[in-house]
């Protein structure tokens, strides 16, 4: 590690050699396989503002600098002390007494020459009030181990500038990560969806293709190469004709009959494509349903209103178009097809032909959606090229796994009771959540954290302090639960309160590294608009190896 140098807001790493595209492809190969070029581009455009420079901040930033975040700014006026030397890998023994933000920026910048890092020596509140532009141009704000009053003020400020925010704090083996985002939309959620093959209601070209396949005239070699999509359509037809029952709302017993029929149709008992067909009947022979998450998006007011207010966000313009598409007779209540089908046992020609049919269907659906989009754009007085063809394409390909995330804002969360008391209690983390709030209340009242030695009172015995503080912290947490949250007979386990106090609110390296990883992963999800963020809180109890993601 290089000796830390002083870095200020005016000095950055510009002028360093930038990597070429092919260098980047090699360097980032293992992550490009996850979020692709567009995800990487989003990361490289991002400007992240981090409040705090302790171990938590260092670990988080390591996990963002390595994958190549665009720029980061660390805001803190703390200096490096003994505790920090023991827990923060990105300060060195020679940094003792120096400005911590500058030390970590210097050491972290070394991990990736493409990333621009800067330190601003200021308190969070001073920075907020003076650096309007640096704040307003941030893509994401991350708050590490700050008092709740500061977190709330930053949350209000982020709300005003419409910037998503993450906040984390830790006390020894205990930690929490919170997300505050008024609205976050995801097209590439990478969510697992079942194969969309439409065997129950084949579109015209698929129906025509299935009809053109004549199983009766085939020998056993040819039969072994018919893709299971066609086999299931044939079996469904035969079953419906034989039983006189409509192909709709099939029950388990009926699906079993169809699977049996498919096994009977097989030229030999273990013919692979017929087995594939029989095994897929249960999941494929179901009525088409729009996923709940997508329904919510279509029913959201933002998907209905355009002309009156200046909606320019492509996601919502496309959602508007999608809502109209779904209401049109063309769609028959089904989302645009992605054009993708799973691999299945078949000869090359049959599979490629089948693939072509679905791709063609996807293209037709996209054309139809684009027509609706053009109407939407016209009504919003936006140019017809406002949404790029690439964006439309991606939206259609992912139409059945779109996601919308809205969380309560952090100041609302922290200044009122948790939204979901039962869920927190059910997950066994209500007491943890209360103890974090109580720790802050203790700090506000006593000007020191529970378990931390009072200033000007040395040499105090640490075990005495811990013993004295534990019942106090427990009591604060319990009255908060009873009086502010309306919990009848609140109970905070003595052991857990003692574990919080034992830490003196200090950070442990392993816990910080854990939390840093979670913060970075949530940051990457928010910045790339890929994958699905956690609900809004993750609680880490590393003392008891208990990790819970839930909602407050």
């Amino acid at each position, binding site marked *: *590690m290089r000796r830390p140098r002083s870095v200020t807001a005016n000095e950055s790493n510009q002028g360093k050699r930038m990597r070429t595209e092919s260098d980047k492809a090699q360097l980032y190969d293992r992550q490009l*396989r996850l979020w692709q070029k567009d995800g990487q581009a989003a990361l490289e455009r991002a400007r992240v503002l981090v409040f705090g420079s302790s171990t938590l901040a260092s670990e988080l930033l390591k996990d963002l600098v390595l994958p190549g975040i665009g720029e980061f700014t660390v805001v803190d006026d703390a200096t490096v002390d003994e505790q920090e030397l023991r827990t923060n890998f990105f300060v060195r023994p020679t940094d003792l007494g120096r400005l911590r933000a500058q030390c970590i920026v210097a050491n972290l910048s070394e991990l990736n020459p493409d990333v621009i890092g800067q330190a601003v020596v200021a308190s969070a509140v001073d920075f907020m009030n003076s650096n309007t532009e640096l704040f307003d141009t941030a893509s994401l704000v991350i708050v590490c181990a700050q008092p709740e009053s500061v977190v709330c003020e930053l949350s209000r400020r982020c709300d005003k500038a419409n910037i998503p925010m993450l906040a984390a704090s830790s006390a020894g083996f205990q930690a929490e990560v919170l997300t505050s985002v008024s609205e976050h939309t995801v097209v590439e959620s*990478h969510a697992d969806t079942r194969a969309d093959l439409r065997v129950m209601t084949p579109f015209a070209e698929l129906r025509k293709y299935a009809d053109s396949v004549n199983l009766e005239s085939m020998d056993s070699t040819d039969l072994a190469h018919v893709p299971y999509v066609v086999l299931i359509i044939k079996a469904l037809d035969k079953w419906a004709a034989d039983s006189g029952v409509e192909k709709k709302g099939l029950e388990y017993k009926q699906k079993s009959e169809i699977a049996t029929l498919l096994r009977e149709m097989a030229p030999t008992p273990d013919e692979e494509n017929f087995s594939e067909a029989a095994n897929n009947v249960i999941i494929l022979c179901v009525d088409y349903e729009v996923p709940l998450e997508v329904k919510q998006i279509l029913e959201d007011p933002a998907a209905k209103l355009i002309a009156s207010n200046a909606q320019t966000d492509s996601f919502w313009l496309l959602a508007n178009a999608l809502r109209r598409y779904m209401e049109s007779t063309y769609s028959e209540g089904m989302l645009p097809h992605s054009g993708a089908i799973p691999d299945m046992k078949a000869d090359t020609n049959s599979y490629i032909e089948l693939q072509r049919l679905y791709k063609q269907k996807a293209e037709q659906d996209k054309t139809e959606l684009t027509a609706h989009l053009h109407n939407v754009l016209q009504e919003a007085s936006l140019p017809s090229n406002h949404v790029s063809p690439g964006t439309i394409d991606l939206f259609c390909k992912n139409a059945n796994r779109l996601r919308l995330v809205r969380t309560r804002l952090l100041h609302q969360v922290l200044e009122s009771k948790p939204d979901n008391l039962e869920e927190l209690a059910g997950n066994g983390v209500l007491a943890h959540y209360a103890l974090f709030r109580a720790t802050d209340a203790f700090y506000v009242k006593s000007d020191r954290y529970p378990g931390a030695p009072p200033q000007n009172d040395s040499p105090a015995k640490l075990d005495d302090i811990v013993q004295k503080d534990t019942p106090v912290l427990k009591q604060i947490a319990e009255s908060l639960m009873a009086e502010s949250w309306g919990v009848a007979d609140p109970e905070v386990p003595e052991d857990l309160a*003692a574990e919080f106090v034992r830490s003196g609110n200090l950070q442990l390296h392993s816990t910080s590294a854990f939390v840093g990883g979670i913060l970075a992963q949530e940051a990457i999800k928010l910045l790339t608009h890929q994958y699905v963020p956690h609900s809004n809180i993750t609680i880490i109890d590393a003392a008891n190896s208990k990790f819970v993601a839930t909602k407050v």
Partner: protein
Amino acid sequence: MTSISACATGYERFLKLKAPHVKDFELVNELGETPQEQLSKAVLVIGAGGLGCEILKNLAMTGFKNIHVIDMDTIDISNLNRQFLFRTKDVGKPKAEVAAEFIRQRSPEISITAHYKRIQDMPEEFYLGLSLIVCGLDSIDARRWINAYIHELADRHGMEGFKPIVDGGTEGLKGNMRVILPKVNACFECGLDIYPPKVTYPICTIANTPRLPEHCIEWASVLEWPRVFPDTKLDGDNVDQINWVVEQASERAASFNISGITFSLAQGVVKNIIPAIASTNAIIAAACTNEAFKIITGSNPYLDNSLLYVGDSGMYFLTYPLFQNDDCIVCGQKEGTIEISSDSTLQQLIEALQEHNTFQLKAPSLTYSSTNLYFQGPPMLEEKTRPNLEKKLCQLFESGSALTVTDPTLPTSLRVIVNFSDFEQQQEEGSK
């Protein structure tokens, strides 16, 4: 106990204060060692890659004073997006050595020793001197080997050979962690079926009915390469060689109307590349180190015994006790049974041992009584035993015979009872 300095910082606070979650927490263990002394005993980190770099940093910053790291690999440019102890100038150097040197620079008070070797090359005394092992490996085979080896140590040396293993693994935004206490809870082998086997494509599909770009890449790399270059092993890191595969695969794909062949896909298929990112490694490595710290110091209860992490759709954590498998070939009865027809050839038995869920062997060598049935090496022995591969099992031994099987995934041999599935039928026919 003397009074504790009120300014105790970092992990030290946790070694000096009563642990609320541990019954009868003692500040010295049964051997009279203080937590500080326990942290001074040697720990081994296996793997200095994505997880390994994190684990090394975490151990160093958590008070471990005597750390060994072993890795047989050298640094590649594609490691630098997560393996933060390495820089561009280090490409080509041994991972273990560069990682150890970095930690040494940051924390000179810690003893850290690098071993640029295979785990199989370290002597028994080395393993006996450890207090704990943390694995940050991507290779299932290496994890099976160390797991079996450590169980054997515990068998032969009792408490002196008892070495807890904390094992971590990641793939993309998912990961898992296990605390393995030899003979006490489930071993790595007991949970082997959690790991899906490598994706393989049937040869007939590759050769005759390709449908996916992957099928064409496999055709070029598995069938065409050895045919055209019989003396050169295909190297997934050699750009020219992968380009050759891309060219051949593209030509074949075009003739079948298949699209989607790219360099990245070809390299991914040839090398079986698993996506990896810094943040997932950070989470799993931290979970591993946290458990290691708790096991060594007793400052909090350790996990019983498995953690699953899924981060791609929300955040999902599952902790659960994985149960010991009575049939486990490592910690169970150390003996396996396989059923196969007496008409099968020795070659088919070998394939069955490779595919069977309980065994999943790589390259088994077989002995019956004192007869060498088949040996994978050395070449002379392989050549001598090769004719047996074509022989039917009933020509070689009787049903119910116990074979001695050795395999690179196992440090010791394994007894496998071979039962002929058609045995009763044969008996009946014999008595007619």
